[in-house]
């Protein structure tokens, strides 16, 4: 979330799209209810299903899964055509005036740089601004230059007409206009709209671009950086935010620093590529400090072994030839190119797309390790479970280890909520039986490997042998020691550069924040964005003062938020260019003549006078927000609609005559997975998966109460489809895709309506994911038996929210 849960109460208009917060995030959703009750906020829900979120909406619009860019692109077109944009905001705080290179082009669904032979974007150099001899991007403040971002964007989205929205989404123009007008009502200072989304937006082959389109709407309306505004991702797991912040992804390091690609052989070049220089005069470009973050990180992990002479042990970092994300790993397993795998609290057989592929992949491993508090389907992938999971154990030669871990109640530490707030929790009991903490298990494995490298030697042992491990009990590092390590400390006495007699930090003193980081090896910091969470004053994540002095929900002394305890990102944009709040009644910060301050920690240089013209988006080299994403996205600088890889209409309504622009040209599919794609003729229904409010993922089917209140798997279909396939409520149906089938009871509902797409009727099928063949609920099928292995072009997120199935009576 750019904003936070409680801040939703400050919104005037709330768009929930690609999520169902009332059921998936019930206690956070109450802030929507609060906004409706006390601010008179209007809630809009756009979803294929009439969810419980929709049931309390002021306006509900059914739409087709996989077509959200058309809907949002239509909103952009509406706002630009009708001039419902916040002019002072977009002119000053976005890249609208920037002039784009002359060789940039868009032709029938494909951007310049497309290589028809290689079937990919071979050259993205045209996806950029015109850069002047001074190294700065050229701009036209009048917005009249035909190649300025404003003009290009207007042209690009002119194709996203209400008629196109009706054709692609099945949303009639009057409904679309109603939503557009409600959102447009916030294009003025003093009104705010927020967007709440979840995996209903991300789990598509165009997921990342869908999010961008939403963010573009918010920028046009001047809703980024203000109270009650923002782009608010409602994360699905309690600490998936934290694990992402800490870089537990194939290509990342802590704090959104990225691992080097194999072409990056030289440390200085690696650092320079991340230390972005400002693209306009007087801009901050905070990533120009990247060397401080990187050097301090290397010092945290490799201590004295990371020196200036050896480029801070740059060679210890593995270098990528490609991303090795989850779906790539399974593909490598299938090809026999992987030996072992560890699943830490991750039930991949249930979570990953195409269960048969996952089963085949795990069957090719030599060994698999499961760390979990509960029995999982993954741990028994080798064991037959009736019709729900058919395997022959004799054919599976994988060694499997199941290691019992403790759960939340049996450990202490911090989790990062969707609000980016790090909250510390305490242990209330010991784990059952022989269960152990993940900390003890990871330390146990690492220390055993380290000892073996010490005694036996082996391949490149240096990064293992030199890894800092200064914990009081090396076999079980404490959460407190680890939290202090990711916060960071001074490795020697640090004095004020302006006054060397003044000691800023004593040797070994905890850092107060990332502003104290150095690029000369004198500070260590495991995760720069978490610097400030455990300072010399102690554990800031354990703070429990819930006072809200301004009444707008800014509880700055409750726990600690990254970065720098800031609760609303980009909050400089909540003020006009002169530093006065756009809306004084919901003031976050303001300029008082000498510095910035207020109800939040300023997302800005605190003593920078407004008249100097520094932009509010300090993490970007432009200093302003981007409509034109340059070369940072795989598909191109402006989001464009492409059909799901399994499309119920079989062509892209925006590019009916260009087969190359049917699906996301940058989406990823492996050849054998492509063979399993279904066609609309055989699988005519659009399926989407989701969670039930009574269950959490695949865990609560092991909890007694949840299994009582929602005991059995079902499939949700509309009345029209039920009639078509001849089933009534309670009948068993077989749902088949190109990957397999499931059988479950049908819930026939008015909540899913037939839509008219491209002139033809179309049905959605709803598939709750929470069931499986292990647990206290009735045994069921894993829904990911049906889903395709398709990766979003940027994030490699599977397309689990939009694929094709056939429903028939079982």
């Amino acid at each position: 979330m750019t904003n936070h849960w409680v801040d939703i109460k400050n919104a005037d208009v709330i768009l929930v799209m690609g999520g169902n917060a009332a059921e998936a995030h019930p206690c956070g959703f109450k802030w929507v209810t609060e906004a409706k009750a006390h601010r008179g906020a209007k809630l809009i829900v756009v979803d294929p299903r009439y969810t419980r979120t929709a049931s309390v909406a002021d306006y509900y619009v059914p739409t087709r899964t996989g077509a959200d860019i058309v809907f949002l692109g239509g909103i952009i077109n509406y706002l630009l055509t009708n001039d419902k944009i916040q002019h002072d905001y977009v002119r000053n705080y976005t890249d609208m005036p920037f002039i784009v290179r002359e060789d940039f082009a868009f032709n029938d669904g494909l951007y310049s740089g497309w290589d028809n032979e290689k079937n990919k974007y071979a050259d993205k150099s045209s996806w950029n601004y015109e850069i002047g001899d001074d190294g700065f991007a050229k701009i036209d403040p009048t917005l009249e230059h035909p190649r300025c971002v404003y003009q290009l964007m207007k042209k690009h989205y002119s194709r996203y007409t209400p008629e196109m929205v009706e054709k692609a989404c099945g949303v009639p123009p009057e409904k679309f206009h109603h939503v557009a007008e409600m959102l447009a009502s916030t294009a003025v200072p003093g009104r705010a709209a927020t967007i709440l989304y979840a995996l209903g937006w991300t789990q598509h082959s165009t997921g990342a671009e869908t999010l961008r389109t939403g963010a573009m709407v918010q920028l046009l309306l001047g809703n980024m950086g203000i109270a009650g505004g923002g782009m608010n991702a409602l994360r699905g797991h309690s600490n998936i935010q934290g694990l992402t912040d800490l870089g537990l992804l194939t290509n990342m390091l802590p704090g959104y620093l990225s691992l080097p690609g194999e072409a990056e052989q030289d440390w200085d070049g690696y650092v320079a590529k991340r230390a972005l220089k400002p693209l306009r005069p007087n801009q901050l470009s905070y990533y120009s400090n990247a060397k401080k973050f990187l050097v301090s990180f290397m010092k945290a992990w490799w201590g004295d072994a990371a020196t200036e002479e050896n480029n801070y042990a740059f060679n210890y970092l593995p270098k990528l030839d490609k991303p090795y994300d989850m779906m790539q790993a399974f593909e490598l397993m299938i090809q026999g190119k992987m030996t072992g795998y560890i699943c830490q609290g991750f039930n991949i057989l249930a979570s990953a797309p195409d269960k048969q592929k996952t089963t085949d992949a795990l069957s090719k491993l030599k060994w698999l390790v499961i760390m979990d508090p509960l029995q999982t389907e993954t741990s028994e992938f080798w064991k037959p479970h009736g019709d729900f999971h058919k395997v022959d154990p004799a054919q599976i030669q994988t060694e499997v280890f199941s290691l019992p871990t403790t759960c939340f109640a049996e450990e202490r530490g911090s989790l990062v909520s969707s609000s980016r707030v790090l909250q510390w929790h305490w242990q209330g009991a010991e784990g059952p039986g022989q269960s152990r903490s993940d900390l003890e298990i990871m330390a146990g494995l690492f220390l055993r490997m380290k000892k073996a490298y010490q005694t036996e030697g082996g391949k490149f042992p240096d990064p293992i042998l030199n890894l800092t491990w200064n914990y009081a009990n090396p076999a079980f590092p404490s959460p407190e020691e680890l939290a202090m390590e990711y916060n960071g400390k001074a490795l020697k006495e640090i004095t004020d550069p302006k006054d060397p007699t003044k000691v800023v930090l004593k040797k070994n003193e905890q850092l107060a924040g990332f502003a104290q980081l150095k690029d000369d090896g004198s500070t260590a910091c495991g995760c720069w964005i978490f610097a400030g969470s455990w300072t010399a004053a102690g554990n800031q994540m354990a703070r429990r003062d819930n006072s809200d002095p301004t009444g707008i929900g800014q509880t700055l002394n409750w726990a600690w938020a990254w970065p720098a305890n800031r609760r609303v990102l980009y909050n400089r944009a909540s003020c006009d260019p002169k530093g006065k709040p756009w809306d004084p009644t919901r003031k976050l910060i303001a300029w008082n003549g000498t510095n910035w301050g207020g109800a939040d920690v300023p997302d800005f240089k605190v003593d920078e006078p407004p008249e100097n013209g520094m932009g509010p988006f300090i993490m970007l080299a432009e200093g302003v927000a981007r409509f034109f994403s340059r070369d940072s996205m795989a598909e191109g600088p402006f989001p464009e609609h492409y059909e799901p890889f399994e499309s119920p209409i079989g062509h892209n309504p925006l590019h009916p005559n260009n087969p190359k622009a049917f699906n996301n040209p940058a989406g990823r599919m492996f050849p054998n997975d492509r063979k399993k794609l279904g066609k609309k003729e055989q699988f005519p229904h659009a399926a989407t998966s989701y969670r039930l409010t009574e269950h959490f993922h695949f865990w609560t089917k092991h909890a007694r109460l949840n299994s009582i209140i929602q005991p059995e798997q079902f499939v949700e279909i509309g009345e029209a489809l039920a009639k078509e396939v001849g089933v009534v409520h309670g009948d068993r149906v077989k749902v088949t895709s190109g990957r397999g089938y499931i059988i479950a009871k049908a819930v026939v509902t008015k909540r899913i309506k037939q839509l008219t797409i491209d002139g033809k009727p179309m049905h959605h099928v709803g598939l709750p994911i929470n069931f499986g063949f292990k647990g206290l609920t009735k045994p069921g099928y894993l829904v990911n038996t049906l889903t395709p292995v398709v990766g979003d072009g940027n994030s490699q997120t599977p397309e689990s929210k939009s694929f094709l199935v056939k429903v028939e009576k079982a």
Partner: protein
Amino acid sequence: MNQMSRRQFLRVTGATIAGSSIALLGFAPATALAEVRQYKLARSTETRNTCPYCSVGCGLLMYGLGDGAKNASASIVHIEGDADHPVNRGTLCPKGASLIDFIHSPNRLLAPQYRAPGATEWSPMSWDEALNRIAKLMKADRDANFVEKTEDGKTVNRWTTTGMLCASASTNEVGYLTHKAMRATGMLPFDNQARV
């Protein structure tokens, strides 16, 4: 750590007022207190925690029985929302309200288990045996398949034949240590649940 909550405070002060005013009426305190129905959680220990399910980050109050005596282990007997928490303000959803049944699920794993190649059932294994064997398998694969240089001479120091998926409900401290220990080996097929 501040373990005295608003609720505990009320409990202590409430008990004091009740006890002293009853005494003033002439009852013997021991008899009088025996008349007051025991607050069920009075003997429990309150611990603050965070819901491990979705990302709202609801504050929890967990009540554990067990007096901390030697050989006595605490058991959580009740969980409710933390009324002081600025986001959930004491509320919990159908998932969070049943957390007690996650802790005490009959399907909790209690001891390490091993499934041999081709076997149809699990067999028991000690922690030491399991960790020794896994560490040995990891090292053997790393030594066999670690790539120090590409064919064209680039230093890459990567290990792509063993991978790991990391827990979405583990703490930051677990995540940090896991990342540190695994990335130091050069492991690249290292991912988390952000995508699913």
